[in-house]
C-alpha cells in the first residue's frame, strides 16, 4: 500500500551520478527530523538507516548539508544542537508562532507528562534517572519548561560524579492538580490495575466537579460502579 523507497532502488542509483541517491537520503532524513520529538544525532540516524540503505556516516553528513542548503528561504532551518540535529522554525517567525499559544495553550507533550509523572513518584530524581526509566534522552526544554512553570524545582544535587541536580515537585503542582498532598495520588499497584485507576480517577473527578451532574452520571454508569469494587486495595 505504501510506496516505500526501497534500499535496492537507492543503491541502484549509486553509480553514475550520486545526486539522486543523496536526494532520497536527504528526504528520508528530512522526514525523520520533522517527525522526531528530539534532535537526532548522526549516530542515531546511521543506526536507523545503515543496514537498509548501506549509507555511511559521511553520506548522512553530506545529505544533512544538502538539506540545510535546500531549506534556505523556507520558514524552518536545520540546526545542530548538543544532542544532534533538529529542524526548527527560524527565530524570526517566533513572534507569529507565539500567537498560537495565546489562542490556545499548547498541549503538554507525552515526554513532558512522563517526566513530570516520574518526578512526582520518584522524587528526588536526577535527569539521568528519568532518562534511564524512559529509555530516551531528555530534551533540555522539558526540564526548563517544568521549572519555568513552577511545577518542579531543584532540591539538591546527587553526590555522584557530575553532581547532577535532583528534582522534586512543588506546591504549585499540587494546587494545579487539585490535590492536597502527593498522597492523594494513587499507589503504584493501583495504577497498574486499570480498573482501580479508573475508580480512583472517577472519585477524584467527582470531588473536583463538586458533586455536579457528572457524579450522577458516574453513579449511573455500570462500568464506573463495577470498577469501584477494588477500592479496598487503596486502604
Amino acid at each position: 500500500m505504501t510506496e516505500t523507497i526501497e534500499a535496492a532502488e537507492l543503491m541502484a542509483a549509486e553509480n553514475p551520478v550520486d545526486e539522486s541517491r543523496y536526494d532520497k537520503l536527504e528526504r528520508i532524513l528530512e522526514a525523520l527530523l520533522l517527525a522526531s520529538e528530539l534532535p537526532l544525532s548522526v549516530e542515531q540516524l546511521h543506526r536507523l538507516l545503515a543496514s537498509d540503505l548501506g549509507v555511511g556516516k559521511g553520506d548522512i553528513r553530506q545529505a544533512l548539508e544538502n538539506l540545510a542548503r535546500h531549506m534556505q528561504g523556507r520558514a524552518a532551518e536545520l540546526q545542530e544542537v548538543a544532542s544532534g540535529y533538529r529542524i526548527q522554525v527560524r527565530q524570526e517567525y517566533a513572534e507569529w508562532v507565539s500567537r498560537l499559544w495565546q489562542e490556545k495553550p499548547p498541549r503538554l507533550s507525552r515526554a513532558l507528562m512522563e517526566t513530570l509523572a516520574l518526578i512526582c513518584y520518584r522524587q528526588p530524581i536526577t535527569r539521568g534517572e528519568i532518562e534511564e526509566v524512559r529509555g530516551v534522552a531528555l530534551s533540555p526544554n522539558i526540564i526548563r519548561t517544568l521549572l519555568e512553570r513552577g511545577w518542579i524545582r531543584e532540591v539538591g544535587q546527587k553526590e555522584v560524579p557530575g553532581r547532577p541536580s535532583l528534582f522534586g515537585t512543588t506546591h504549585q503542582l499540587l494546587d494545579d492538580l487539585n490535590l492536597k498532598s502527593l498522597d492523594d495520588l494513587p499507589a503504584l499497584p493501583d495504577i497498574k490495575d486499570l480498573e482501580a485507576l479508573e475508580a480512583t480517577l472517577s472519585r477524584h473527578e467527582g470531588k473536583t466537579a463538586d458533586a455536579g451532574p457528572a457524579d450522577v452520571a458516574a453513579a449511573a454508569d455500570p462500568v464506573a460502579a463495577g470498577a469501584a469494587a477494588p477500592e479496598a486495595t487503596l486502604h
Partner: protein
Amino acid sequence: MTEALIETAESAAPPADAHKLPKLHGQTLEKMPEDLYIPPDALEVFLDAFEGPLDLLLYLIRRQNLNILDIPVLKITQQYIQYINLMHELRLELAAEYLVMAALLAEIKSRILLPRPPPDEEEQGDPRMELVRRLQEYERFKTAGEGMETLPRVGRDLFIAQARPELIPVSAKLAAPSLRDLLMAFRDVMQRSDLFSRHQVSREPLSVRERMSHVLSRLHEGARSFQDLVDPEEGRAGVVVCFLAILELAKSELICIVQDQPFEPVLIDVARPQATAVENEND
C-alpha cells in the same frame, strides 16, 4: 487449513483413544461432519476469530463461495447448529448470542422441512428473509470496517511534521495537566520500563518522597537539626513522615547525619564530596 487440521486429528487420535473424541448426543463422533472438524482445543481459538454468530454464518457461507441471496439455508443451518452443539458438548462457554441464533436457525429449518405454513402466518415475515437481511446488513459494516482499517492513519502511516522556534516568547501559561493524563503517562512509562514487575508492591507514602525533596532543599541553606526540619503543627504523622524522609535520604547517601561531640545536637546536612574520605577510612 481445514485439511491440515483433519490430518493432525487423525494421527493424534488412534482408535484406542476413541473416548477422547468429541461426543455428540452421547455418541462418539467417529466420522466428523464434512469440512467441519476442528480439534477441540482449537475450537475456542476458532470461535474467538469471529465477531459473533452473524460473522460465523457469513464465514460458513463465504467458505463455499456462495452469494448471501443463494444460501442453501438448510445446509448452513445444519453446519451452524453442529458447531454450536460441538462446543456445547465440549463444555465451552458460548456467548448467549450464538445460542439465540441457533434457536432462530432451528426455527427456520423446521419451517423448511415442515409443510408450508398457512398464508396468514406468512405475513409475520419469513424468518429467512429477516436472517438474510441481517447478514447483508452486517456484512456491509464488516466490509466498511475492514476498509477503514486500511485508510492511512496518523501515527501509523502518517506523521505530523513538527518544528518549533528555539525560543517562543511565552505569554500564555501552560495549562495544568489533568490528573488522568498525568497518571496515564506514568502508567505508560512504567509499563514500558517494566518497573511494575520489579517494584515492591508495598505502599510507599508519596508524602515521604515529597518530604525528601523538601528536606533536601532546606538543607541547602545550611545544616539543620531534626527539630528544625519538623513542623510541630503537622502532628505526629508529620513528624513520622519527616523522620522517614530523613532516613530514606541518608540511605540514598543524599544527606549525612553528623554529631560532632557526644550530647551535641545531631545535625543533618547535605552529603558533601568528603564522602570519599570516609571511603578511604573504611579501607
